[in-house]
């Protein structure tokens, strides 16, 4: 279904593999960097939304206290506040929605570059961009990393391969923790409860997802989360500097 993304992505992996020492993990890492660069505007927008939400927290808490017994009125007041502050509550959703086809495309790309079945390999044989330099003869790519087969899901024979989905869980949770506005544990509003549930649910879902599919995909998610976390602190650092200057 996502072959229209998978084929070009697979060819980019081939190109990176050829120019980066024929190392599959390095090629996937480089692709992850490229993808994150591509979605950087959306990620920055999401982070700006996060900061504004953080700034609004005190006012939101006041509203929660004031309308504790009137959920409908509370929701209306919250929406007015968001509108006044220029925050789109759906702002956190858009980057994820855009990334979903990228994830599935990448899953397909990894399956084509490190195929576990001949039918997958045969399918890809007609979609290699031979005009790209050095890609002829590369497929299938070298598939082992630390004794794991990057084209296979984690399995009991290579039991250490289960560490990758666990790392996906940890790094994704960290990313969420860092980038999601904190809510007070006393805040029992539906939004806050939903937020807390998603902070647990999304990392678990990501781990479950990566348990089913090629370990190469886990590499992408781990690196992607680390990039986002680093990006957050860089941007926050710059923001702190700018705020300091403006106060001065």
């Amino acid at each position: 279904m996502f072959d229209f993304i998978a084929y070009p992505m697979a060819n980019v992996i081939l190109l990176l593999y050829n120019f980066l020492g024929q190392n599959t993990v390095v090629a996937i890492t480089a692709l992850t960097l490229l993808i994150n660069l591509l979605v950087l505007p959306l990620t920055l927008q999401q982070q700006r939304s996060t900061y504004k939400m953080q700034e609004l927290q005190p006012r939101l808490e006041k509203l929660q206290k004031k309308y504790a017994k009137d959920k409908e009125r509370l929701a209306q007041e919250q929406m007015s506040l968001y509108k006044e502050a220029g925050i789109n509550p759906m702002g956190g959703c858009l980057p994820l929605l855009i990334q979903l086809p990228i994830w599935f495309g990448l899953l397909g790309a990894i399956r084509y570059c490190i195929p576990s079945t001949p039918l997958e390999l045969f399918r890809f044989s007609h979609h290699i961009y031979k005009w790209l330099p050095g890609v002829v003869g590369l497929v299938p790519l070298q598939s082992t990393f630390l004794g794991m087969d990057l084209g296979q899901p984690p399995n009991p024979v290579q039991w250490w391969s289960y560490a990758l989905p666990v790392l996906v869980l940890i790094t994704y949770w960290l990313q969420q923790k860092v980038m999601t506005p904190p809510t007070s544990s006393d805040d029992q509003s539906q939004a806050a409860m939903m937020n807390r549930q998603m902070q647990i649910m999304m990392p678990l879902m990501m781990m479950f997802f990566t348990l089913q599919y090629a370990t190469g995909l886990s590499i992408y998610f781990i690196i992607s989360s680390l990039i986002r976390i680093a990006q957050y602190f860089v941007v926050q650092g710059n923001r702190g500097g700018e705020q300091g200057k403006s106060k001065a």
Partner: protein
Amino acid sequence: MNRSWTQRWPVGLAVLMVLLLGVSGCAGGGAARPTSWTGLVAVGDVLYVADLQQVQALNPADGESLWAFPADPKEENRGVFQATPAVDEEHVIVASQVPATGFFSQAKHVVWALDRDTGNLLWHFDGAAGPYVEGGAVGGGLFVIGCSDGNVYALDVQSGTLKWVFETRHRVWATPLVVSDTVYVGSMDHHLYALNLSGGTVRWDFEADGAFASAPVLRDGTLYVGAFDDRFYAIDADSGDERWHFDSENWFWGSPALYDDVVYMVDVNGNAYAVDAEAGEQVWHQSLGVKVRAGPAVAEDGSRLFVGSEDGTLYALDAVDGFVMWPSESEGQMLSTPVVDGSVVYELLINGPYRLRALHVDNGREIWAYPPVVED
């Protein structure tokens, strides 16, 4: 926007992910969905077929089943059989993948040795860590087979005892060629290896710029084999030196066919070539314009070349000039090398109503198809 939508988007997103998993065809897999093509070999007056959930011995005259292993796959699941059987005087040796039964269990990859006359199980070997894609070869009392775990296994053909293992640096998806005391086997690590049959030690290895995924053919001291670097090679069988190579547009995946002094090969773009075996000069070229996975088969009198395509069409070409004499269309995909036996050519299909058809070599007329249609 109302409250319920803005607050429930994370749940909606999670549901969307699960739906996409299902729609993208990524989630799970059925027990016997083909992941590869099936294989057939004609030995004596029997056809031995890897037929997904069973191995079948069929009567070549009408496709009637002589025996099957396992007899009832619903009672006794021995996995999915796809790799071509290897047959010697006493044995039919096949490989299957037995699916995992639970979340933390793993699939098993098993070699089964069956009595050639009855299909009774003689021994099995399950020491491999990856699936077998192509079948193995028998020679010198050993059964040799390559595996997706990167190893080449040699088993005693009488007992199934593991005799030696040779490790390559990538998947081995090619059938080995056993000739006298040497095993020739290609690997996805871009090497064609010549190994001593007795101990699995390396005599020589030839490196190409692409993977080897098919068995070489040996004639007069020269090995003929294609690779994924869009090249076809003639290699000295004693030294491993290249004699010549022939370039095409895309990968050579199936094994070539030889007749007299001509090598016939087909690339995955459907370019069929006849090339002089000695010098590597092109005799003719026919572009079929279809996707072809397997190698060609030559009629026993050398007059015709048979090529199967991914869209289910079997082409008969004139071996002299490549002219297409007849096509025969079928439902399904034809990704296996056709097999010629006398005046009949057998084609194997996947994802269609029939898995095996027997056709006349002269005109492509169907003689019988398997499985047979059951009339009420």
